[in-house]
């Protein structure tokens, strides 16, 4: 097996064994350190080690008993849910409009919409903080949702535009020639066919908002502190083991969302 050629240039598997080992190590580095947090979160002592010397649910209780952590979780979930709605709707409309319109300006507008992905987040955070101060949007859910939506729109635009490319717009023309209005044709013919891209985009926006630290750090004070903001501050000051239990929950959530996105991807490619 090992002596068989691996590539068309006749390198054998044995000759590039080092390459496989290197790749194995890289994959290990990518996945395992994060997963080690899961068993450590069940540790009974303040000092987390692997494997834990004693097992307990102490840090989960610490999380669920804490009013602050629960409030932060609730703010984060609300912000993420609203961001998903706002970014997916506006982003999908923009992707559809810019894809179908044949005016030359569409190219420039697409670049404008991708800007939030290019500009360093710290700059967006400083800018938003400055903008929201006179509008009293700092420490408000609206402010959080607006700024997180701006971050998510580029991803929605890219994902949905990719989906639109696989869709034959003539189908919509057929529906319209049969008497459907454009909105109706979009909802009944186009949307069902780009559904998986739109859902992927929605998942991405949810994750972007749930994961966002830097903007929240500047604008989400007081009651509006998000989960990432609290985690960041707790990590900077001292390593609170409660974060291990929160991290475990977040890791399981991200595995779930990743699985969902893979499922959508597979359906889309079929």
């Amino acid at each position, binding site marked *: 097996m090992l002596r068989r050629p691996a590539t068309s*240039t006749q390198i054998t598997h044995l000759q590039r064994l080092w390459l496989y080992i*290197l790749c194995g190590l890289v994959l290990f580095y*990518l996945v395992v350190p994060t997963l080690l947090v899961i068993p450590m979160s069940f540790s009974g002592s303040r000092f987390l080690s692997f494997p834990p010397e004693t097992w307990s649910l102490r840090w989960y209780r610490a999380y669920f008993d804490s009013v602050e952590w629960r409030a932060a979780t609730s703010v984060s979930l609300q912000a993420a849910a609203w961001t998903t709605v*706002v970014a997916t709707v506006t982003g999908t409309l923009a992707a559809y409009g810019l894809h179908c319109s044949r005016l030359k300006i569409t190219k420039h507008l697409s670049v404008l919409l991708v800007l*939030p992905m290019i500009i*360093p987040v*710290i700059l967006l955070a400083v800018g938003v903080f400055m903008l929201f101060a006179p509008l009293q949007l700092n420490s408000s859910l609206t402010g959080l949702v607006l700024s997180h939506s701006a971050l998510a729109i580029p991803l929605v635009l890219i994902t949905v535009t990719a989906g639109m490319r696989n869709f034959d717009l003539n189908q919509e023309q057929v529906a319209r020639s049969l008497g459907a209005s454009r909105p109706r044709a979009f909802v009944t013919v186009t949307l069902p066919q780009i559904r998986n891209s739109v859902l992927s985009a929605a998942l991405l926006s949810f994750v972007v908002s749930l994961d966002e630290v830097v903007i929240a750090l500047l604008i989400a004070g007081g009651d509006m502190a998000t989960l990432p903001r609290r985690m960041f501050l707790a990590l900077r000051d001292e390593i609170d083991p409660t974060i291990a239990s929160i991290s475990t929950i977040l890791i399981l959530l*991200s595995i779930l969302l*990743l699985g969902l996105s893979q499922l959508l991807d597979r359906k889309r490619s079929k």
Partner: protein
Amino acid sequence: MSSAESGVRQNETALARQAFTEQLKLLSLSFPALLLVGFIVLIPMGWLFWLSFLDADGFTLAHYERLLHPSYGLTLRTTFELAFLVTAVCVVLGYPLAYIAAQMSPRAARIVLLCVLFPFWTSLLVRTYAWLVLLQRRGQLNTWLQDWGLTDAPLRLVHNFTGTAIGMVHIMLPFMILPLYAAMKSIDENYMRAAANLGASPVQAFWQIHVPLSLPGLGAGVMVVFVLSLGFYVTPALLGGGRVMMWAMQIERSLAVYSDWGAASALGVVLLVITLAMLWLFSRLTGAVNAAAGGR
């Protein structure tokens, strides 16, 4: 006759006008998103630019003059050093993985890609926290190193440059692997076969055929990783322990500690200009690479 002609012309202009309004209507679908991005991104960026030239007496360059102070120079150097190091390590680790994954069976490649996507979907803070726990003085890695007799005393792995680099490479690696994989997947296997047929050794074929053809992916990966690293805040702030001062942290600090809007906006404008300049440079370079690859 002429009235019929003018009728046709009238019809045509009416149709053209209708088509144009139709296009405008389509375009207007993008207005909510544009409005939001304009409000959240463009206006504040313009304002930041404006503020950086302003003090109590009006126009000034004082904020930029202050940036000439050596401490800012040091920050800029750290930022670039870290970005270079992280990008280089990502290339060294990411290229082989993408190379192997692109040659695997679809099912095996799927598993590898899942491993690459997993950190991508996991919270940045969670991953940074994991490194903090693993790398600290009494952390798991030091325990293992000492148990295996590799070191006598615990190593300083975190709250310094090393820890920051380890954590940042972990965050950035997927951004390198995914474009590389996409580029390598589109390389026609026949080129390598032809090279072997024409007498190239495997090493020659790899360097002269595979590497040049994968350059667009490499360029995209390098660009994304480098630019993201330049403006990175969270991981250096947590894993650097105050010893690694990045440009982004300098911005946050001048606001949070000194409430100095002039300095913060000047620092911000510099970061923005550097970022855009890098993007421009990379797109020029990869454009040149694409042209060269196309000319082969």
